[in-house]
């Protein structure tokens, strides 16, 4: 299967201009000095000896011209060789403006325990309704404000409900084929943020194609998820929408590990073994180096059916020890179904459904080895958080002009997420998103998007999102 990550951005793009011009290599044969000019003819009728000399001179000049031509060819080959060097770095900048209703947050405390019953032991201020990421304003899924949210530690945008301009990311994408089927890829994003600027290494992996006949790619490093389809185009230059779906937090992570991707005819298969789950780091901070004896296994199978340019139907799943604690027997699982219809009369459709569970573990359980945790006498889901979730979305778009693609998305998420008495999220969120994707030039896209958030079963609060994004890329 062709990798649709950032490598593709590089491989399919035109010539970049950010890389410095390489110095030409020395040629194999040095050009000879130009011959001296022929002496002025004294006699208009040349002698045979003179004619012979002229012929010699002309032959010598012809020989020199041939050498020059060879030099040019050599130089052209050198330039051709160096072109990829100029192309392995792609730079993009994603800037935007957003305005989110209310205080910018997607959650509210259940003031006075008026909506969520049976959890009176958790302070009402820590019982939260809504979805903390429902007010995402960029492709990274950063909410405009975290408000009272307690599971998300850093309020990177912190808008407090005010409209704001933002530089979503300055991205550096690196991808290069080294030779013999080996290539490298990386993605670094710089995030100017209030308080402290952030740097995030999103991808850093080595890819290896062991066979020219078998379409198999083996990767190792900080790799893409294999779950579902949304992760494939999650970075701003490639994302159709401005913001991710509500389930991207479960499928768009980039853990440390190894993976293999195989394409055979209409079947695509991907398998990964990673240090932890495939959750987005924003939703759950990864222990990126090993924390368990057993890795998390994840797989995706996909069939391409002959509908439009291809109807991709996939199923994926993951299982392994739960992140956030060290016991291997405390597990989590995830499965999902995905569908992608490509270009049926200009219409593209994405749809995904996922369900999963983090088992969680309470204080007092057999986690004495959990040196990082302070044992506590009570607290259900106290050592490791408990999480159950279901989520789905449908995203449809139609290219009505080469430069204009309107889209609409409906997504839903139901979840219960508890960590001891620290917090309880009860989410029943429904969102409707409409937007347009505009190709302004070959290297500039603009997106405008409006999202209406609805909290099911609890009082509504204003948290609708208007957000924009302009992405300019060197490729």
């Amino acid at each position, binding site marked *: 299967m062709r990798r649709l990550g950032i490598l593709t951005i590089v491989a399919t793009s035109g010539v970049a201009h950010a890389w410095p011009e390489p110095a030409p290599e020395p040629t194999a044969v040095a050009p000879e000095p130009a011959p001296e000019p022929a002496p002025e003819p004294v006699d208009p009728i040349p002698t045979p000896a003179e004619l012979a000399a002229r012929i010699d001179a002309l032959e010598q000049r012809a020989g020199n011209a041939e050498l020059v031509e060879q030099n040019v060819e050599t130089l052209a080959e050198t330039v051709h060789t160096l072109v990829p060097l100029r192309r392995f770095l792609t730079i993009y900048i994603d800037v935007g403006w957003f305005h989110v209703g209310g205080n910018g947050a997607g959650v509210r405390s259940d003031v006075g325990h008026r909506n969520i019953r049976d959890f009176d032991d958790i302070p009402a201020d820590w019982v939260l309704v809504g979805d903390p990421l429902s007010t995402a304003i960029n492709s990274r899924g950063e909410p405009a404000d975290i408000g009272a949210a307690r599971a998300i530690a850093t309020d990177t945008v912190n808008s407090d409900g005010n409209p704001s301009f933002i530089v979503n990311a300055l991205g550096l994408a690196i991808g290069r084929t080294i030779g013999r089927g080996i290539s490298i890829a990386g993605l670094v994003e710089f995030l100017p943020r209030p308080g402290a600027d952030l740097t995030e290494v999103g991808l850093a992996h080595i890819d290896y194609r062991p066979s020219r006949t078998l379409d198999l790619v083996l990767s190792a490093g900080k790799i893409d998820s294999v779950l579902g389809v949304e992760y494939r185009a999650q970075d701003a230059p490639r994302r159709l929408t401005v913001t991710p779906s509500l389930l991207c937090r479960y499928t768009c992570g980039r853990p440390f590990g190894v993976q293999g991707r195989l394409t055979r005819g209409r079947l695509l298969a991907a398998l990964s073994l990673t240090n932890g789950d495939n959750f987005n780091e924003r939703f759950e901070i990864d222990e990126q180096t090993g924390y368990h004896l057993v890795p998390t296994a994840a797989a995706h199978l996909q069939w391409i059916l002959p509908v439009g340019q291809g109807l991709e139907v996939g199923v994926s799943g993951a299982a392994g020890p739960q992140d956030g604690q060290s016991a291997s027997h405390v597990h989590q699982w995830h499965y999902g179904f995905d569908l992608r219809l490509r270009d049926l009369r200009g219409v593209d459709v994405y749809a995904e459904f996922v369900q999963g569970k983090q088992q969680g573990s309470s204080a007092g359980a057999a986690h004495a080895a959990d040196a990082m945790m302070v044992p506590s006498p009570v607290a259900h889901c106290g050592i490791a958080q408990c999480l159950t979730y279901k989520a789905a979305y449908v995203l449809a778009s139609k290219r009505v002009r080469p430069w204009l693609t309107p889209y609409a998305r409906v997504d839903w998420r139901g979840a219960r997420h508890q960590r001891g008495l620290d917090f309880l999220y009860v989410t029943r969120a429904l969102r409707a998103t409409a937007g347009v994707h505009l190709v302004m030039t070959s290297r500039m896209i*603009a997106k405008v998007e409006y999202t209406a958030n609805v909290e099911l079963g609890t009082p509504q609060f204003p948290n609708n999102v208007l957000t924009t994004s302009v992405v300019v890329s060197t490729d």
Partner: protein
Amino acid sequence: MLAWRGVRGLVLLGVCGVAACAEPLVDGTFTQAEWDFAQSFRIDRLATPECRFCVSADAGQQLFFDPRLSGEIIADGEGALGALGESGKVACASCHDPQRWFVDQRSKPNGSSLGTGWTKRNTIGIVNSAYLTAFTWDGAASRLEDVLEIPVTSPAALHSSHAIIASVVRTHYAGLVTAFGPTTGSDDELYQRAARALAAYQTQLRTGPAPLDRYLAGDYTAIPDEAKRGLQVFIGRGLCSECHNGPLLTDECFYNTGVPQRGLHVPATDPGRFGVSQDARDLGAFRTPMLRQIAETGPYMHTGELATLADVIDFYRWGGSPSGFSGTKDQRLIPLEIDDDDASALDAFLHTLTGEPIAAALTTRPILP
């Protein structure tokens, strides 16, 4: 060009859409959810308590001020109400001072109160107690007429007995003897009549609306802006309303909030609610006190250790004491996510809970029979 026009149009449309969803804040401060919850604090939401023994309320007031109900004094020293061994020196009003919202402000900085001896706990307020269903710090009484038993049997409070009470009633309160119908005149029966009379008197000790109540009723000038922010902290990240809720700002439940057993006359351990329930989880737990007129009823906590509301806020702000208390502290007692401004605002809010004083006729010492 068309693309740019499209962008501009959508931005304008979206701005309008978001603007229409701007959150309406009550008084520019509270979300609707916060305001709706705060309405549950209004004291006018309380039904007037039944006054079953009101016929004897005047006698109850006399008994409340009557030191003849008490037995021998067992502690002397500064503030003592009599000499060691003297009887008839301590009245209910000695510790429940009517001029001080019926709490004992003599206990500053002693912590506990001084009746016939040093009590092990700070005197708890009795104003508005007619609305309650559990009384005293540990809920040892569940009816107002049962409360008298506690100081009567305590050597440090009244150090009295049914016989002493009955004797006083029999000798001086002839009207009370017949107030509830025929009687055999036994000590227990007369004691019960005294208890009912005291309950009747206490039922009358109720406050009216405080500035907070007027504010919640719609008078947005009734409390200062800082107090409004304090109310927001109170029901939000201060977590205060977890226990202090309802019109009296108490849930009448029992919690171990990590108050250390510290003070000159405070015992090293105190079983708290466990002494009543015998449930190990209640060890060191005490009833959530009412917060009505809390600004006037210091010192605070069951040990009387904290002299000011600022001290109390600071105590909870840092999650209670790490040690020195009986039992296991409630897990929710962790450092709060509030800052100095929040603490100051909370203090201001707590000062809006004081209603009009109790009528002078009820706080004045009557002529004793």
